[in-house]
C-alpha cells in the first residue's frame, strides 16, 4: 500500500459547525427510571419479534420480552424489573408516523435481575458458534444507527476473508457525542468488544477511525489499546468532514478501498462495527448483560441542559428532556438522531430504542422559503458519492424514474449534504426518498404481475401440453393399429369380415325380434261368439250416445 492509512479521501463532504461542546460540558449521567417503559417489538432491521410475555406478568431485568427464531432479528429484553401493563400500538420513531406494537413495562423500582440471562452460551464462549449465539441472545444490533442484528452480520462476515476490521468512532454528524463520551469513559469496554470481534473474524489489522475533533477520545482509545494489548490495532485520526462516518466513506478513508456500488464491505475484506456495538458485545460476553440500555445525547438549542445519559431502552424521550432541564423554546423541533439524517419525531412520548443515539431539539420548526433550482451545482460539489444531485432532482420531480436509476439514485446515502448547501432550499433528499419508494413499489408491482403472467402462461402451456399428449396417444394408437394391419393384411381382412358378420347377425336378430313383436296376436283376435256380441252391443251404445249428444248440444 502506497498510502498511510487515513491519508485517503472521498469526494465532496461538508465542514459543518459541529456543536459537540454543548453536550460534553457535563459528565455522563445515569438516567432515572421513567414511570413506564415502552418497548417496541421490533428495534432492529429484519424480521419482527413475537411477544414472550403476557399483560399482567411480572418480569425481571434482563428477561427476554420478545423474540423470533428468524436469523435476521434481535430479541428485546426487560431493562428493569416490573409488570407488563399493556401490549398495544404506541407512537414510535418511524418515518411513517404510524403506531407500532409495543410492550409496556411499569417498573417496580426494585431492579431485580434475572441471575443468568445468557446462561446457555456463556460457559462456552470460547467456541465461536456459542459466541455468536450469545451475541444474538443479548439482542445486540449495530448501534451506529443501522440497527442491523450484529450476530447476523458477524455470521456472514465469517464466511468471508476479513483483512481489515474497521471500528467506527467517527461520529461525523453535528451535535451527537454519545460515541465520543463512550470512548472517553469506557475505552476498555470497547477494546474488550474489539477482542471478541477479532476472535470471531481474525482480521489482519484493526483500524479505529476517529475524527480529529475528538482528541480526548483518541487519547483514551490509544491508551486502552496499549493496556489491552490488542494486536495490529491502531487508532487512525481522520479529518473532521461530514459524512466520514458512512461505512463506505470510512472504508475509503482508512484503507483506500472503494466498495463497489452493488457490493458489501465484506466483498473487499472489510468488516465495519460501531464503537457502541463493541461495548455492548463486551457487556454481553463479559457480564452476561443483554442490550437493555444505551447512551443517548440530549442536545440542541431547544434544550436547557444538554448532556449524555445512560438510558434504559423504552424510556419516553419526554423523561430525558425533563432530566435535561426541559425545553428552552416554545415550538422546538424534535429529532431522533443528528440534524443531517435524523428522524422527525411526532411527539415527545416516543420511546428511546436501540437506534436512538441522540434526541436533538432545534429551536425552530420553519422551512426556509423554497425557490426554483438555478442549476448552481453546489450539490454536485459536496456529494460524497459523486452523484449529480441536480439531475436526480429534475428526474425525480418529473417522475422519470428510469433516468433516476441511470444517474445512480440507489447509490445515494441520503446524507443530506446536497440539501444543506442548496441556495434554493430545495428538500432534495425528500425527492430522492420519494423516487426510491416509487421505484421499489414499481419493481414489486412488476414482479407480481410478471409472476401472475408467468403463472397464466404456465397454465396455458400445461393445458396445451395435456391436450397434445392426449392427441399424441390417440395418434399412436391409430398408428399402432395401422401398423398391425399392414403387417398382417389377411388376418386383418378376416378379422374385418368376422366383424361385419357379427354385425350382420346382430342386425338380423334385431329385425327378427321386431317381426316377432308385430306378429304377436292382438286381444281382439280369436274372440268367442259371446264376446263378439258384447263388443257389437257396446259399439251400438257408443253410437247412440254420440248421436244423443249431438242432438242435445
Amino acid at each position: 500500500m502506497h498510502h498511510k492509512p487515513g491519508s485517503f479521501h472521498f469526494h465532496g463532504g461538508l465542514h459543518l459547525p459541529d456543536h459537540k461542546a454543548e453536550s460534553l460540558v457535563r459528565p455522563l449521567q445515569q438516567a432515572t427510571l421513567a414511570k413506564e417503559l415502552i418497548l417496541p417489538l421490533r428495534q432492529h432491521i429484519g424480521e419482527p419479534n413475537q411477544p414472550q410475555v403476557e399483560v399482567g406478568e411480572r418480569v425481571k431485568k434482563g428477561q427476554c420480552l420478545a423474540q423470533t427464531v428468524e436469523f435476521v432479528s434481535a430479541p428485546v429484553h426487560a431493562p428493569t424489573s416490573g409488570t407488563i401493563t399493556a401490549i398495544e400500538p404506541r407512537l414510535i420513531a418511524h418515518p411513517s408516523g404510524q403506531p407500532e406494537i409495543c410492550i409496556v413495562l411499569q417498573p417496580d423500582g426494585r431492579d431485580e435481575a434475572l441471575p443468568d440471562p445468557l446462561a446457555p452460551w456463556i460457559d462456552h464462549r470460547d467456541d465461536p458458534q456459542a459466541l455468536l449465539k450469545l451475541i444474538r441472545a443479548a439482542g445486540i444490533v449495530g448501534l451506529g444507527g443501522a440497527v442491523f442484528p450484529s450476530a447476523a452480520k458477524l455470521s456472514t462476515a465469517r464466511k468471508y476473508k476479513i483483512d481489515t476490521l474497521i471500528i467506527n468512532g467517527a461520529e461525523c454528524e453535528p451535535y451527537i457525542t454519545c460515541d465520543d463520551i463512550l470512548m472517553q469513559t469506557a475505552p476498555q469496554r470497547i477494546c474488550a468488544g474489539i477482542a471478541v470481534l477479532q476472535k470471531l473474524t481474525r482480521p489482519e489489522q484493526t483500524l479505529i477511525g476517529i475524527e480529529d475533533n475528538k482528541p480526548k477520545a483518541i487519547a483514551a482509545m490509544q491508551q486502552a489499546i496499549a493496556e489491552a494489548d490488542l494486536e495490529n490495532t491502531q487508532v487512525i485520526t481522520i479529518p473532521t468532514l461530514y459524512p466520514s462516518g458512512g461505512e463506505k466513506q470510512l472504508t475509503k478513508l482508512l484503507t483506500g478501498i472503494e466498495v463497489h456500488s452493488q457490493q458489501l464491505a465484506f466483498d473487499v475484506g472489510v468488516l465495519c462495527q460501531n464503537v457502541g456495538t463493541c461495548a455492548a458485545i463486551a457487556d454481553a460476553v463479559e457480564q452476561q448483560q443483554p442490550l437493555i440500555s444505551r447512551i443517548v445525547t440530549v442536545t440542541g438549542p431547544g434544550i436547557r441542559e444538554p448532556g449524555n445519559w445512560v438510558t434504559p431502552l423504552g424510556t419516553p424521550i419526554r423523561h430525558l428532556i425533563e432530566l435535561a432541564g426541559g425545553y428552552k423554546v416554545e415550538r422546538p423541533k424534535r429529532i431522533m438522531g443528528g440534524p443531517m439524517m435524523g428522524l422527525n419525531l411526532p411527539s415527545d412520548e416516543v420511546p428511546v430504542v436501540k437506534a436512538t443515539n441522540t434526541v436533538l431539539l432545534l429551536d425552530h420548526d420553519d422551512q426556509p422559503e423554497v425557490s426554483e433550482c438555478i442549476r448552481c451545482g453546489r450539490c454536485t460539489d459536496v456529494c460524497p458519492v459523486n452523484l449529480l444531485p441536480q439531475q436526480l432532482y429534475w428526474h425525480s420531480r418529473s417522475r422519470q424514474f428510469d433516468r433516476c436509476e441511470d444517474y445512480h439514485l440507489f447509490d445515494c446515502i441520503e446524507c443530506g449534504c446536497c440539501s444543506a448547501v442548496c441556495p434554493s432550499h430545495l428538500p432534495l433528499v425528500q425527492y430522492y426518498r420519494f423516487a426510491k419508494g416509487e421505484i421499489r413499489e414499481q419493481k414489486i408491482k412488476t414482479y407480481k404481475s410478471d409472476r401472475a403472467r408467468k403463472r397464466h402462461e404456465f397454465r396455458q402451456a400445461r393445458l396445451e401440453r395435456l391436450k397434445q399428449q392426449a392427441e399424441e396417444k390417440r395418434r399412436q394408437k391409430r398408428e399402432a393399429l395401422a401398423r398391425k394391419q399392414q403387417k398382417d393384411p389377411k388376418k386383418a381382412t378376416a378379422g374385418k369380415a368376422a366383424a361385419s358378420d357379427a354385425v350382420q347377425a346382430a342386425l338380423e336378430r334385431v329385425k327378427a325380434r321386431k317381426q316377432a313383436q308385430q306378429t304377436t296376436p292382438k286381444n281382439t283376435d280369436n274372440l268367442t261368439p259371446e264376446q263378439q256380441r258384447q263388443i257389437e252391443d257396446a259399439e251400438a251404445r257408443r253410437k247412440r250416445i254420440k248421436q244423443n249428444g249431438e242432438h242435445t248440444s
Partner: protein
Amino acid sequence: MSIVSSPYVTPSASTNRLMLNVIIALIPGSIAYIWFFGVGLIVNLVFSIGFALLFEAIVLKLRKRPLKPYLGDYSAVVTAWLFALCIPQHSPWWLIAVGIGFAIIAGKHLYGGLGFNPFNPAMVGYVVVLISFPQEMTRWFLPLQVSGEGLNLIDAFRYALGWVDISQWDALTSATPLDQYRSGLGQNLMISEIRQSPVFGDFAGVGWEWIANLWFVGGLYLLATRTISWHIPFAVIGGMLLMSFIFYIADPDAVASPGFHLFSGGLMLGAFFIATDPVTASTTPRGRFVYGLLIGVLIYVIRSWGGFPDGVAFAVILANMCVPLIDYYTQPRVFGVDPPDEH
C-alpha cells in the same frame, strides 16, 4: 411549513444572496466605467433595471405568480445590469426597452422563468438589439480622457429619451479599439500602425483595460464568496489565451497580442459574470471546464473571423446550446461505480 424529513439545517446560501453578491462584484468595474466613459451607464442602468422589473412584474402577473419572492431574488436586476454594460454608453430608451423585453419575456419567462431558461437572458436581449439596430449599437463614445469632455447627467437622460439632437455629440463617438483592430487589419495595416490611434492604452483600449482589471477584481470577490467556481472563468480565459497565443506567435505583426484580447471588449466581464450564469452553464465539474474553454475559443474565433467586433454574446449563446450535450458526456464517476484498479 414544517420540515418533514432530514436534513434540518438551513443553508447559509440563498438565491437572492448569490445574486446580490454578483451585483456587489459588478460595482467596482461599473464605477471605473463611469470614470472613463461618463454618466451614460447610470442612465442605462436606470432604464434597464426599471424595464426589467416592470416586465418581470407584468409577466409574473400574467403567469399568476407571487411578485415578492421573484422580484426580490435580484435575478432580473443582474440581467438588466449586464445588459446595460453591453450596450453603448448612451443608448436610446426604446433600444433598452426592446432588449430588456426580449431578455425578460422571451429569454426567461417563455421558458418557464428563472432556472428554466436555456440561454443567458442578458445575451439574448443584447443579440436582438445588436442585430436589429446596428446604427445605435455602434455609437460608442470615446473615453473622457481622450475626448476631453462628456455629457452631464441631465444631458445623458435627454439623450436617452431623444429630447435633444444627438448629432451634436457625434464628435465624441468613435469605433471601439476592437473595431479599430478589425477594420485596420482589414486594410492590411500592421499592428504597430493600428496602435497609433489615441484610443489605445498600455496593452488594450484606454479605459477598457482598467475596467477589465476591475471586472477581474469583482470576479475574485465572486470566487472568494464561493458565488461561482473557478472552472468557468479559468477555462474562458485559458481558451482565449491558448487561441490568441498560437496565432500571435505565428504572425505577431498582423495578429493582436493575447494581452490585448484579454483586456479588450467583454472578455473579463464575460468570463466572470456572463459565462458563469449558473442556470445556463454546464453543471458538472468537467463540463464547466469544457463549457468555459468553448466560450474562450469561440470568442477568439468570432473576433478574428466573424462579422462582429466582439463575440462574447454569440460565444455564450452557442455554448449554452451545447450544455445538455456537455453535461451528458462529462458525468463524474460515481463512488463505487467502475472504480479504477487499486495500486
